[in-house]
């Protein structure tokens, strides 16, 4: 079922602030095997001109994707999220995320397309700090694959970019399977 085009441009209310902690950044850096001291040593980060340890560039996805969950699970939108895969991801930074930030996310539906029975949804997450200053914007392209196809990685053609069943949709997929 094609998604309702009238949702294009719709913004969702800002999330409650997420407080970025040094130890959460450390945990993430360790998990991706990155020993850059700017992620764990405040002095190393300060030597680079930052106020506290930085988060690796993709760290903020955990925050923006949680916010996007509100869009994905909006019953009025009617996305079949058991079939959702993550197509593209992009970030544009005004400044890096660092420990001590209190970040809010405003999610907006930028585009809805239907292609070969697949629903393609572009969600933009604008991330601001406690002072209301822009930190980073994340663009997430999600593809809900047509009913009757399995949620397997796109190996058919470049016209179907989506590949990986998106994060956090799988609990539902498991229940629906």
């Amino acid at each position, binding site marked *: 079922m094609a998604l309702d085009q009238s949702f294009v441009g719709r913004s969702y209310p800002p999330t409650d602030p997420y407080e970025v902690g040094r130890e959460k950044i450390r*945990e*993430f850096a*360790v*998990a*991706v*095997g*990155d020993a*850059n001291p*700017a*992620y764990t040593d405040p002095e190393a980060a300060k*030597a*680079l*001109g*930052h106020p506290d340890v*930085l988060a*690796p*560039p*993709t760290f903020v*996805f*955990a925050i923006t*994707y*949680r916010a996007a969950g509100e869009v994905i699970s909006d019953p009025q939108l009617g996305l079949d999220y058991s079939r959702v*895969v*993550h*197509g*593209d*991801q*992009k*970030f*544009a*930074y005004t*400044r*890096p995320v660092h420990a001590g930030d209190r970040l809010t996310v405003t999610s907006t539906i930028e585009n809805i397309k239907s292609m070969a029975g697949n629903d393609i949804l572009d969600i933009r997450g604008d991330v601001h700090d406690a002072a209301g200053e822009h930190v980073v914007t994340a*663009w997430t392209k999600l593809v809900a694959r047509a009913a009757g196809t*399995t*949620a*397997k*990685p*796109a*190996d058919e053609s*470049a016209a179907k*970019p*989506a*590949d*990986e*069943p*998106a*994060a*956090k*949709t*799988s*609990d539902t*997929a*498991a229940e629906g*399977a």
Partner: protein
Amino acid sequence: MTAKIAYDDIEVGTELPAQSFPVTRATLVQYAGASGDFNPIHWNEKFALEVGLPDVIAHGMFTMAEAIRVVTDWAGDPGAVVEYGVRFTKPVVVPNDDKGATIEVSAKVAAKLDDNQVRVDLLAKSDDQKVLGMSRAVVRLA
């Protein structure tokens, strides 16, 4: 921002030092915990097969996190990354053995932009398959 690479020293075509990143099932469990992404396709083989995957696959965002390390290690300051985007084209399949999989990442400067910025194009492969498409970063150099 204090990138250790000077804009004036860089030419289009400059290659960044390539790197290989190992990924095992244990890596994926650790990443699931750190990122909060507990999708079972990243740790539950039975589930992965049921939804049509060849085996457990790495989180796309894990692969994205590894690939940018080639850029951040080169630039010195991770805060020098101004933009970063990828398309997830193929999964990184992670077998349940001691070796797991390897993500091979190479990168080169594709364009010099204004304001001391350069565009870096990344190539990420696993098992000889390109796993990221349109993988690009914009970095502000010294």
